[in-house]
């Protein structure tokens, strides 16, 4: 008989009942996973939180529920049942409880679908959340692990309670009247755990990767299969998402999130203000969100946590940059490099345009030593964990040490350390030992006259060569000869005195 329900209301009601059924299954199965459930409240509504409750949708469970429903809705004579059973590691199994979502003929015609029915269904879901923690199977499911596991099975059709043994109890979760019937949710649970009583069920971590034969009862089948079902365990989708189940399919269906505050006596006037999900509407609706932020972490001690997963990448700070700026002040610390205290060190770090070429050459010479010093410094420094030790210029690469190519103030030089390293043996020719001679190739130079470079040339001809006569052994020898040959020379000169006089006259 026509209940006077408008098509829109009927459509809404069917949708509510469908999603209520799916959410019911989710709540029941999640309550038997063996872990604590935690979801977050959110003050801004999203389109995917049916009944204004944050209930995660496990894809496999939704898939199983939809398979069982096969497009139908719970109706009169057609109940949706979730059977929870226990299976031991030896293979024994036992039904623990059966949750039934039924519909009876008692209709409540005057009730407002979009508002009252929806809210009452929401309250019923909350009641289900509370009751699922109260039945005996909850404690058993929290202790599942090595000895036994909890399985679930969804079927549609007639309720079968024979597997619950003698004296099973029934608890009614709640009822919600609708214009097409009254939705009833109840649970029948076994009280006789006889074959369990001799076993010790210890608390242990859930087994990961458990494979259980799963068998889902085809719809309308009254034949009860061998008591197999789906295991009540779940691992987060990012760990083992085999792609078998597409995300949260129902996220495409938007749930009602908008209500009207019109007086309830106006049954259908609210239609005007009711925002159907199909309409564009406010931004809060129509979010087919897959809720990527919600992840369930199974198998952990702390229970199931639903938090956004933010991998924290701390800065990789083992190379902390403590790059001391090369300032003239820091250069002053390189006192040890300039051994004899002249002004060279001041010019040592100037850019490559010195005023005095000789001075510059001096500076460059010294600089060679300075730069060259660095490799050994860096080698030592590396062992001292100096920053950028790995990037220190290698001593044999003259290009890097070339102050003409690179301005002198660029290299990272931990000057205090360098100062300390060179504080000893910096006098006289001592540092020569620390110096490794490097070919110095100045820019624009060319080997032409002498096959030598500027530095070598300079070193060689820096001072005039020693006078031969002044060299000791030669000079002594020549002196002796001279003295010996002197009388003879005098005799010769006196003989030729006229010639000499004529010569002198010629010169004047």
């Amino acid at each position, binding site marked *: 008989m026509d209940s006077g329900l408008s098509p829109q209301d009927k459509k809404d009601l069917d949708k509510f009942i469908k999603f209520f059924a799916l959410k019911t299954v989710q709540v029941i199965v999640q309550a038997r996973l063996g872990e604590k459930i935690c979801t977050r409240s959110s*003050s801004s509504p999203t389109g995917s939180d049916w009944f*204004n*409750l944050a209930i995660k949708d496990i894809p496999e469970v939704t898939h199983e529920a939809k398979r069982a429903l096969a497009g139908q809705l719970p109706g009169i004579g057609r109940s949706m049942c979730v059977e929870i059973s226990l299976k031991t590691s030896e293979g024994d199994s036992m039904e623990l409880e059966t949750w039934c979502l039924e519909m009876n003929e008692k209709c409540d015609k005057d009730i407002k679908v979009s508002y009252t029915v929806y809210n*009452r269904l929401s309250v019923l879901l909350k009641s289900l959340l509370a009751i699922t*923690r109260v039945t005996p199977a909850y*404690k058993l499911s929290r202790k599942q692990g090595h000895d036994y596991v909890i399985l679930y099975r969804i079927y549609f059709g007639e309720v079968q309670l024979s597997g619950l043994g003698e004296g099973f109890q029934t608890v009614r979760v*709640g009822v919600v009247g609708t214009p097409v019937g009254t939705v009833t949710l109840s649970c029948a649970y076994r009280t006789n755990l006889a074959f369990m009583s001799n076993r010790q069920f210890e608390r242990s971590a859930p087994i990961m990767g458990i494979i259980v034969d799963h068998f889902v009862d085809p719809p309308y089948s009254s034949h009860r299969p061998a008591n197999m079902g789906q295991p009540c365990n779940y691992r987060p989708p990012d760990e083992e998402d085999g792609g078998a189940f597409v995300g949260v399919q129902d996220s495409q269906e938007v749930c009602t999130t908008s209500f*009207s505050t019109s007086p309830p006596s106006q049954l259908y006037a609210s239609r005007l203000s009711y*925002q159907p999900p199909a309409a564009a509407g406010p931004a809060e609706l129509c979010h087919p969100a897959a809720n990527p932020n919600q992840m369930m972490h199974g198998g952990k001690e702390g229970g199931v946590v639903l938090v956004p997963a933010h991998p924290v990448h701390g800065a990789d700070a083992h190379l902390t940059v403590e790059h001391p700026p090369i300032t003239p002040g820091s250069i002053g610390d390189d006192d040890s490099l300039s051994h004899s205290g002249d002004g060279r060190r001041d010019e040592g770090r100037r850019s490559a345009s010195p005023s005095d070429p000789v001075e510059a050459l001096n500076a460059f010479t010294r600089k060679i030593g300075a730069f060259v010093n660095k490799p050994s410094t860096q080698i030592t420094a590396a062992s001292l964990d100096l920053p950028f030790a790995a990037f220190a210029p290698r001593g044999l690469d003259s290009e890097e040490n070339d102050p003409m190519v690179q301005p002198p103030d660029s290299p990272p030089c931990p000057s205090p350390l360098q100062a300390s390293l060179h504080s000893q043996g910096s006098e006289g020719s001592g540092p020569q030992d620390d110096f490794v001679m490097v070919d110095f190739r100045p820019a624009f130079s060319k080997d032409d006259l002498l096959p030598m470079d500027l530095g070598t040339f300079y070193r060689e001809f820096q001072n005039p060569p020693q006078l031969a006569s002044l060299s000791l052994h030669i000079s002594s020898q020549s002196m002796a000869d001279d003295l010996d040959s002197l009388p003879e020379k005098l005799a010769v000169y006196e003989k030729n005195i006229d010639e000499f006089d004529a010569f002198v006259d010629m010169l004047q």
Partner: protein
Amino acid sequence: MNCRSEVLEVTVEARQVEEAMLALLHTILLHRSTGKFHYKKEGTYSIGTVGTLDIDCDFIDFTFVRVSSEELDRVIRKAVSEFKDALSNSGSDGMGQISLEFYQKKKSRWPFSDECIPWEVWSIKVNVVNLANEQERQICREKVGEKLGEKVINVVEVINRHEYLPKMPTQSEVDNVFDTSLKDVQPYLYKITFQITDSLGTSVSTTMRRLIKDTLAL
């Protein structure tokens, strides 16, 4: 309109008082809280999402579900701990009662202050016992867990009768019906009070009335 009144009785050990009260109060508030309302134009509103949290009790073999709201949890814990302190200060075999009252505010004309009209009152009577040894305590753990389970079923049964609930308010009236002070959930306006009776069961020698949710003081 008559106020609906429900009474729950529990017998617990002293250290179980807090968790037992939290379990029952949170179970009731779970059903009596909604998401935050967001009013839009044309008198429509959308409702936020309520998350839930499983809480294991330490001294009782019991797990209850509460709303995922730390603010609300703090308020309830504070009230319960005051009740517990009062109970323990009163005497060894203390009996007490904690009440959770849902009310509506009705604006009155000046100079009268707003009326608070309760529409549902839950009273939880607590009887504290002392146990002699550990074995008794262990039995008590399980028994109280079962009893609390029964109480939760009672609560659910009452609530699912779907008797009077204040009608959904317009934006201007929302504070007369709901507690909008929390940022993530919105319970109906409530207040928690308690009273301690001494062991003779006579009426209170010290009545401590704690208003957790104040009415608007004009």
